[in-house]
C-alpha cells in the first residue's frame, strides 16, 4: 500500500532527453481520437520547418533499435519517404540517419 500525502502539488517534470545520432526530438501536432488512440498529423524540430505526415501506415509498441528508446511507433509516410515516429512518453522523436533526416526536414 502506498500512501503519499504530498505537502506541495507535484510539479510535472520534463522528460529526460537522451541524445544519439539517429534520434531527433520533435514537437508534434496530433488528433486524440475518441477511442483514445493518437493520430499524429505533423511534426517539427525546435526551429525547423513543419513536416506534414501524409499517412500513418502502421502503429505498434516497438523498440527504437537505431535511435535508442521504446514506445508507440508510427510508420509515417512523408511524400515519397517513410520514417518512424516514436512516442516514448512523454517525448516524441523520429528515428532517421543523417541522409533521411536532411531529406525529410528540407522537404525534398
Amino acid at each position, binding site marked *: 500500500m502506498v*500512501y*503519499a*500525502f504530498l*505537502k506541495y502539488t507535484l510539479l510535472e517534470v520534463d522528460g529526460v532527453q537522451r541524445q*544519439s545520432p539517429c534520434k531527433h526530438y520533435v514537437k508534434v501536432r496530433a488528433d486524440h481520437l475518441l477511442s483514445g488512440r493518437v493520430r499524429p498529423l505533423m511534426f517539427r524540430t525546435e526551429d525547423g520547418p513543419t513536416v506534414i505526415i501524409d499517412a500513418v501506415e502502421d502503429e505498434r*509498441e516497438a523498440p527504437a533499435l537505431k*535511435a535508442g528508446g521504446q514506445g508507440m511507433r508510427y510508420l509515417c509516410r512523408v511524400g515519397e519517404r517513410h520514417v518512424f515516429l516514436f512516442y516514448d512518453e512523454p517525448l516524441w522523436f523520429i528515428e532517421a540517419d543523417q541522409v533521411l533526416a536532411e531529406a525529410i526536414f528540407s522537404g525534398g
Partner: protein
Amino acid sequence: MSRVILHCDANSFYAAVEMLYDPSIRDKPVAVGGSVEARHGIILTKNQKAKACGIRTGEAIWQARQKCPGLVCVPPDYPLYVRFSKKMRRLYEQYSDRVESFGLDEAWIDLTNPGVTIADGERIAHQIRQRVKEELGITVSVGVSFNKIFAKLGSDMKKPDAVTVIPPDSFRERIWRLPAGELLYVGPSTQRKLARMNVRTIGDLAQLDTGVIQYCLGKNGLLLKAYANGLDESPVMPVDFRAAIKSVGNSTTPPHDIATAEDARCIYYLLAESVAARLRQEGFRARCVTISARTTELVTRSHQRMLKRPTNLSGEIAAMAMQLFHERFGDGLPYRSVGISCSHLTLDDAPIQLDCLGDEDRRIAVESMERSIDDLRRRFGHQVVQRGVVLTDRGFADINPVEDHTIHPVPFFSG
C-alpha cells in the same frame, strides 16, 4: 488437474534497458551501478559481456573496473525501469488475471484453466518471449511448470531469451541433478548446512529423511523438501490482491528530539490523525492502541492498551496514546522518534454495542467531521486543516506524517 504456471524473468533487466536507450554501448560490457563519482556503490546488474569478464552483481565498482578496464558503468534510472516493469506486466495481464510480480523484473503468470495443458503453457511462453522482444526490445527467460518454485527454477536454467519446461511427469530427471543452491530459498548458509549432510543436489534434498531434515533445518527444512518434490501449492495472487491488514501504524523521527511532554503531545496528535484517517479509509475500527518511543541511544520501547470501544477517531487514539505516554514514558525524555499503531481491527460497518449513558451522538458527529477533514485534505493537501496543538511548534507542524513505503524486492511469503 495439474496447474500451468509461467515465471518470466527479464534478462539483466537494468542493463538491458540502458542498452536499449543508448545504442552506442550495446556492444560493450555494461554494468548499472551506484554513484560512480563518489567512488562507492556496487554493481546492480551487468550484461552478458560484463559477465564474461567475471563481474558479479554486488561487487564494488572499482573491483569490477579492475577485472574489466573497458567497463561502461551507468547510474540507475529507476523511473525508467519502473515504466518498463509496468509495460511488461500489462503484456502479461493480457494472458491471465493472475499475475504476481516478484520485484521489478520477475513475475509469475497462472494460466491454469480447464483444458490448458503444459504444452499450451509452452506455446504461450514462446509467444510472450517473442512479444516482449518485439514490442519492448528486451529479452525474458520463461520457465513453464506446475508450481511456482519449479517455474522460477526453469526461468533460471536457460538464458537469455529462452523457454524451459519442467513437466510434472519428468521433473525428477530434469532437475534432481541440479545443485541444491538453485532452489528458491536455499541460500549460501542453508547450502553449507546441507553440504554437511552430504546433500548436494535437489534430488538429494528431495529424498532426505523427513526427521533428519527437520532436525537440521527446522520447519523450513520440511518446506524445502516439499519444494524439491514439486509439492509447492502456493497460489499465484490475482491482479487485484492485497494482503489482509492486521494493524495500521505510523511513526516519525521529527526534525528535533522530543524533549518535553508538550512536544510528545504534538507529535502523538499528528500521528493519531494519520492513523485514524487510514483506519477510516480502509474501513476499520481498532480496539488496541500501541505506542512506541525510541530514545536518543536508539533503544525502542513500546506499550499497548485496549480501548473500551473500537474507534477510528483521532482524538480517542491520541488521548489513549498520551495516557500511556504519561504512565510509561514520562520519565525517559528526550526521545528521538515515536510511533502509534492500532490493532485488533474490526470492520467499521460491524454492529457495535452502544452505551446508553455514553456519548454516541457526539462520537458520530466527530466521525462525520473527521471524514469531512479527510476529504478536504484529499482535495487540498494535508496541511489545509490542522489541530491547534500541532501548531505549538512550527518545526513539528511541517512534518508530513504519512510517508511512502514501497519495498523491493517483495517477500515471497506475502500472502
